[in-house]
């Protein structure tokens, strides 16, 4: 039996976090989870304490990247076989945990991303403009890194020991998901996708605000292109 850890980054999620943790325990009692309270300004910390959740309280706000990496560091220290990123806002559907782990447990792939855009399983597919943005990022990933990912911004992902070790040492900040895919490809990680269902967030806002979307696109594209340049160089050296 593999030791599986669910990493739940939480920033101002006091309303959702208990439900999310309960849903995990109801789904499978053998699953471990760790809530990373990313310096929340509401009473997320209090809720974690009162409900005796398993949590790490970051002493200062780090943003999603730093919070998720803390989870991977924890997974690395406690020697977990598989780590799953799972949002603290109830957006992700717990019933797909087994599905997302299956290929990793079979040793077919190292890293598995839960995608909203394979088949039509997901009820929630985001707004039209955001879908266009995701398509563009996916195309850039395909062109520069030669990796086919339909949902590069998905935060519902699972990785094996190799991935845990890599991410505990290095994880991008700010808007980490697409960038971290390039990082994994650079290190020879095999990536796959499975269709998952995502709900509309119950409360709390997406980390990507509307007025920031242009900056987001430029920032993410630049990161992918720059990272992939070093990729071709290091390949040339070998």
């Amino acid at each position, binding site marked *: 039996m593999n030791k599986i850890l669910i990493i739940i980054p939480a920033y101002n999620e006091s309303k959702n976090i208990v439900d999310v943790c309960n849903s995990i325990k109801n789904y499978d009692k053998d699953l471990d989870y760790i809530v990373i309270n990313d310096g929340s300004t509401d009473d997320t910390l209090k809720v974690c304490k009162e409900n005796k959740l398993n*949590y*790490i*309280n*970051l*002493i*200062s706000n*780090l943003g999603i990247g*730093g919070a998720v*990496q*803390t989870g991977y*560091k*924890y997974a690395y*220290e406690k020697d977990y076989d598989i780590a799953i990123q799972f949002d603290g806002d109830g957006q992700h559907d717990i019933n797909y945990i087994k599905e997302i782990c299956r290929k990793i447990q079979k040793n077919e792939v190292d890293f598995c991303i839960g995608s909203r855009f394979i088949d039509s399983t997901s009820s929630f597919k985001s707004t039209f403009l955001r879908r266009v943005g995701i398509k563009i990022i996916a195309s850039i990933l395909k062109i520069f890194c030669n990796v086919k990912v339909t949902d590069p911004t998905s935060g519902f992902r699972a990785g094996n020991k190799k991935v845990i070790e890599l991410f505990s040492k290095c994880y991008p*900040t700010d808007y980490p998901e697409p960038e971290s895919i390039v990082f994994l490809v650079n290190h020879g990680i095999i990536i796959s996708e499975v269709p998952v269902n995502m709900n509309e967030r119950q409360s709390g806002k997406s980390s990507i605000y509307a007025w920031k979307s242009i900056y987001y696109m430029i920032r993410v594209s630049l990161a992918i292109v720059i990272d992939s340049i070093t990729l071709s160089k290091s390949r040339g050296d070998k």
Partner: protein
Amino acid sequence: MSETLKILLIAITLIYLFIIIRAVKKRKMHINYSIFWIFTGVILIISVLIPNFIENISDFLGFEKASNMVFCIAIFILFYLVLSLTSIVSKQYQQIVKLIQEVSMLKSDFNKEDKNENK
């Protein structure tokens, strides 16, 4: 350049050097970063003391006016300084992230041990 202006410029530069050296002594400025500022102070004093120092270099390099050379060099140096500051800030940002993560993990492990002892 009139004698009064020369004396004034040298006095200002000496005050400037004094401020930097005092900051280093009081550990308010790291000695690595002070080297550059002391160096500029010394250059300033030299260029005031030696007549036509700036003009001669400017003629040698082929600038039309000495002021053009001064501005050009100053802008390049400032560009370099801001670039190096950006990279210092980025490095420190990474260090701070790591520090927060490690401290937070240590603190939560510590808390859990406390709870067990209380039981």
